[in-house]
């Protein structure tokens, strides 16, 4: 009973990762890289992720950043530093790619 109640108020990284991958798969899927559609992908993926996270009904504020790039092997490096509640606040990074498109979604969940 306690575990069930805890999961309802926890940021579960696996759950969020699966959710994000489903959103990206649905929107980008098997499409080839089209420069003019990039901005559209970014907006749609971000909207879809935020809506799906809101439907989880957990007491979190969410920040979703989406990077869509051509998958041509160029370098990308990232880091982050936080001042937050180390026990409850979490971040998850999801990398989705096919032959031509690279999509990196970062979800930051902050407990309220």
């Amino acid at each position: 009973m306690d575990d069930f109640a805890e999961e309802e108020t926890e940021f579960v990284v696996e759950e969020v990762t699966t959710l994000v991958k489903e959103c990206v798969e649905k929107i980008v899927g098997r499409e080839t890289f089209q420069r003019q559609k990039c901005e559209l992908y970014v907006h749609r993926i971000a909207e879809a992720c935020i809506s799906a996270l809101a439907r989880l009904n957990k007491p979190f504020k969410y920040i979703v950043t989406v990077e869509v790039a051509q998958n041509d092997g160029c370098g990308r490096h990232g880091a982050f530093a936080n001042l937050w509640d180390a026990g409850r606040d979490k971040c998850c990074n999801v990398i989705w790619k096919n032959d031509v498109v690279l999509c990196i979604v970062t979800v930051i969940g902050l407990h309220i």
Partner: protein
Amino acid sequence: MSTYQLAPRRPFNIEQVIKILHEVMETHLSTVKYEPAACPQLCAHITRNVREKVKAMNFDRYKIVVTCSIFQKENQGLHVGLRCLWDPQHDNYVSESYETTQFIALTCVYGIYHD
């Protein structure tokens, strides 16, 4: 213990944080060449530096998240977007980019009020 505080006494100030971002990125990136091995540590330095300076501004009851990304420039297309589910009255963010011939660095600072 409840303080009955409804709003931050010192809200997240965008202008002050942008100055910090600009200064830190200029200091760390102005003389740097793109090196894949050195980039992760460079990103980490930038984020820690920004976090310490923003923390020193003492924004009342704010959680601070700093992210830094460095992208190698290889004539590829890149788009970045952001969506948030937060309190638009008290929460905010600032982002700053720094571009050279070899790379683009993008740093964001998010200030999230904790009731």
